[in-house]
């Protein structure tokens, strides 16, 4: 098994390097550069060309592209991700400020939505084409249809009108002030979790529907097992694998993909950080973030595959 894990981790490298190279090239195609932005040249103000050349040299922007890329890659190999060109702070430090928030929202939304989605999806499948099924389907399709920023706006509107709530200014740690942290993040988690639960519910429903038509489920019914035993022990256990895949994929997405929710709730998370970095042409930050998100994505896929083998004894490692 360890051999398999090592092999998978090694196979990650080409994908990650591909992602890094792609984002590097993409960022260099984007017009405008950070030196210009720092000196305020984009506003059409007076520019000292000498100063611009000096700043570019200072930031390493005057070197050929492949040198810039290799220097950055060499740093990454040594776990040195460089400094933000915009703030001058080490990128790792900047990420560590925001990672706890993004992780907490992602993990909480995952747990809550999974707990809601799997029972709901199963019930809808077992009672296909009854009112239970229709209600679950309408609610879950609604979760996909309602934009999370609109849900956020409505929640804030509601809170402001009825509770005179104000958006938080600074993130407080879960371990230092558990209650304040909860008050801060509960609404973003709800608005993200609804969509997430909707995705998982739909997946659960459709896989359980498929499994309920299998021969072994019919055999289980014929043996005279109670419905609960048939559904949970025979159907759900076999239907759960694709559901785990979608839970994993969504989790990986949540880490860096919450730009819109973070914008609405004025949270300082990784998604917002990424959008700002792109706006500032802060290439090292964008590269590091994209690499981090791709890493999480690939790692989550690996964990999902390992879970598959653990849950289904028919699957073995090659």
């Amino acid at each position: 098994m360890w051999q398999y894990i090592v092999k998978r981790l090694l196979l990650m490298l080409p994908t990650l390097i591909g992602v890094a190279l792609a984002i590097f090239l993409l960022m260099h195609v984007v017009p405008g550069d950070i030196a210009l932005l720092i000196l305020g040249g984009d506003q059409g103000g007076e520019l000292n060309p000498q100063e611009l050349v000096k700043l570019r040299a200072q930031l390493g922007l005057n070197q050929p592209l492949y040198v810039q890329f290799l220097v950055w890659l060499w740093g990454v190999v040594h776990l040195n991700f460089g400094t933000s060109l915009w703030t001058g702070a080490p990128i790792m430090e900047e990420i560590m400020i925001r990672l706890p928030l993004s992780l907490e929202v992602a993990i909480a939304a995952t747990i809550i939505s999974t707990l809601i989605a799997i029972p709901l999806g199963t019930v809808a499948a077992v009672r296909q084409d009854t009112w239970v099924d229709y209600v679950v389907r309408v609610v879950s399709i609604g979760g996909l249809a309602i934009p999370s920023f609109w849900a956020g706006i409505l929640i804030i509107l509601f809170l402001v009108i009825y509770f005179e709530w104000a958006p938080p200014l600074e993130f407080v740690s879960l371990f230092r002030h558990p209650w304040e942290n909860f008050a801060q993040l509960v609404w973003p988690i709800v608005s993200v979790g609804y969509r997430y639960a909707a995705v998982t519910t739909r997946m659960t429903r459709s896989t359980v529907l498929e499994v309920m038509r299998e021969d072994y489920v019919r055999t289980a019914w014929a043996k005279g097992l109670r419905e609960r035993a048939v559904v949970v022990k025979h159907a759900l256990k076999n239907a759960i694998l694709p559901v785990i895949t979608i839970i994993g994929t969504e989790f990986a997405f949540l880490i860096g993909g919450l730009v819109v929710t973070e914008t609405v709730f004025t949270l300082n998370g990784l998604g917002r950080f990424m959008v700002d970095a792109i706006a500032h042409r802060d290439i090292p930050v964008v590269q590091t973030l994209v690499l981090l998100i791709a890493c999480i994505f690939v790692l989550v896929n690996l964990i999902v595959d390992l879970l598959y083998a653990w849950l289904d004894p028919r699957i073995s490692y090659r």
Partner: protein
Amino acid sequence: MAIATRQARPVESPQTLPRHNLWEAMCKFVRTKPLGTAGAAIIVLMALAAVCADLIAPYDVYEINQQLQFAPPSLAHWLGTDEFGRDVLTRLIYGARIALFIGFASSFLGTTTGAALGVLSAYLGGKTDLWLQRLMDILLAFPLLVLALAIVTVLGRSIPNLIVAIAIPIIPRTARIVRSSALAAKENVYVEAARALGSSHLRMMVRHLVPNVMAPFLIVLTAQLGSAILTEASLSFLGLGTAEPTPSWGLMLSGGAPMYAEKAPWLAIFPGLAISLAVFGFNLFGDSLRDALDPKLRHRT
């Protein structure tokens, strides 16, 4: 692929579209899928509103009237007016045009390109397949919004560029699904027979593989329509999509809406409702269409 399944799975028979009378099929759909029919009704209503916008919209979309700032819903302005005194209902009706156009164009562009790549990848196999699939992996591992963001920044903020930006993330998702269907179809005896008869590569792909992947293609297309509309709204909300004064639903929510929400809640409520309803309709319809087209789900035990 990295995991081997000990139990061999039977090769599924290729999915084909039902060939019988279209009208009959539609009647059956309406009878057996009430939710799907409701979705279709929403889509048709929206399309009608978009087509007849000039006839049914009560006011001019771009007309600014400073005296009418933030007028609450009334008989004259059913859904109120915005910070420039523009009629919200009118802008929502014209917004249907933008949403449908961008939604259809981008999901069609994305799924067609993806399907073509999927069929090509499955048919050619070997090295081409391997490289195309790695390329798709890279596209998939990319955060979706970053991709859209970068494309819009590189190409500039316009509707055609926005369509490209929304279409590109759809490509790898479609390519994967279509590729697996095409792989299964490739194993058919008649494909082998066509090869033996000396059909050209193009003919093999177009005549023998493409009809087999039409069902999964249609399913992905309808599923992507809703999410393309949602992506457009999100990008416009973030200020990266359409620009003022285009009556885009996402844009209507981005400007003054959250700021004036307390004073003029109708500005925050109605555009969001329009987006949700549209995406809801496409998803309801797409779901039922999948149920109707997928042979695995067609018969109840």
